[in-house]
């Protein structure tokens, strides 16, 4: 079948002492439409519309540009700071409590679990582009149950952030513009829910890799 890009998910539940209670590994089934749309935009260097995590249409620019002008006919001071990231200003793994079946048109988790219930650790990245057979990038995040009751996780997903930022000072006048939206690229519904007791941790890893 030739080369493929795949994704595998690992889930690990640890008790409050850090002991592993449960480990699961399974294939991710579920790129959603946003992913292939952004790939098309990149290759065609055009704009496409993706749905952000709130369901709003957002423009993803395959040929991205941030600009600002300082006009007039007077020599004035002009300073600028531009930032641009299309797939990441912090890729994120999020978790949810719904088992609504996956469909490729989905743009968010069905019932996201908030950070005040399952505290979100920092995103971690690991990559081995030199791996002999399966070069990969791994995304990892640990969630800790800071709630008083057990929390049941039924869905997980990967989200990218599109970010444009502009800050300029022209003739002493400041101007700032931010375009930031989060869009889902993968959603997986767990075949069996996983329950995380209070003070326990749930680590979710997505490994995206190439198979030759």
């Amino acid at each position, binding site marked *: 079948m030739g080369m493929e890009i795949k994704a595998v998910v690992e889930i690990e539940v640890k008790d409050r002492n850090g002991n592993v209670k449960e480990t699961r590994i399974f294939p991710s089934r*579920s790129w959603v439409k946003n992913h292939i749309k952004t790939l098309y935009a990149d290759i065609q260097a055009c704009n496409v519309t993706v749905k952000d995590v709130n369901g709003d249409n957002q423009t993803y620019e395959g040929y991205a540009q941030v600009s600002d*002008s300082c006009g007039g006919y007077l020599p004035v*001071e002009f300073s600028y700071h531009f*930032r*641009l990231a299309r797939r990441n200003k912090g890729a994120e793994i999020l978790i949810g409590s719904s088992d609504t079946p996956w469909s490729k048109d989905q743009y968010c988790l069905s019932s996201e679990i908030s950070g005040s219930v399952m505290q979100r650790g920092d995103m971690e990245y690991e990559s081995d582009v030199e791996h002999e057979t399966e070069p990969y990038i791994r995304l990892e995040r640990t969630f800790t149950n800071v709630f008083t009751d057990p929390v049941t996780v039924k869905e997980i997903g990967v989200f990218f952030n599109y970010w444009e930022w502009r800050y300029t000072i022209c003739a002493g006048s400041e101007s700032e513009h931010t375009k930031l939206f989060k869009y889902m690229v993968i959603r997986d519904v767990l075949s069996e829910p996983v329950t995380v007791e209070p003070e326990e941790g749930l680590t979710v890893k997505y490994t995206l890799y190439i198979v030759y």
Partner: protein
Amino acid sequence: MWWWWCNVKIQVKVSLELKDRNGNIKERREFYSRSWVKNFIVSWVADIAGWGMTVRDRDGNERSYRGYAGVDGYTQTPPMGGITAYLRQKVRNANVGSSDKCGILIGTGGTAWNRNQYCLDEQITGDVVTHGNMEIEDGTEDPVEPYVRLKRTFTNNSGIDITVREIGLFFNYYLYGGIGEVETNYNYMVIRDVLETPITIPNGESLTVKYLIFVSY
């Protein structure tokens, strides 16, 4: 590997179509591409992690690939009429018209693939075989296997037969930031496939190569 049973996949299929000078199809082939090279995974990691990574351009030079780009600048004396500062970036562009430096390219070399390669073994340039415009089709709404299809037709007007043994896909990276700064602009190979059986384009005939990048569930 222990995750051999994975489901969702992004795959690439190649199709070749040889036509005579009257436009009649003489031969058609379709096969799975085997061969992302390292540049692809490096640029992909850069995008997802927001890192700066290094890829090799088609000339073998190390180039900066930025998944997260920024620029800072300052000027005190803009010219009369004002000034505009930019940060512009394309990272995976294959919409390159008829350029023979980027997009789908073909070659005569049969050196076996390896993932560290950054160019075709022996590229057939545009002065030998006319490179048609790159065409890119948006199939992202396909209900079963959403896809992006890249297509280019090569016409042999060289006066001799040309034998193609390798094909590849090249993207263009472009970054420009600030006022009057130097552009970063280079082409880098992401896929190279060596044909199991070479295909010959007789003089006056054409070869159409399509790369179909698709998601299968």
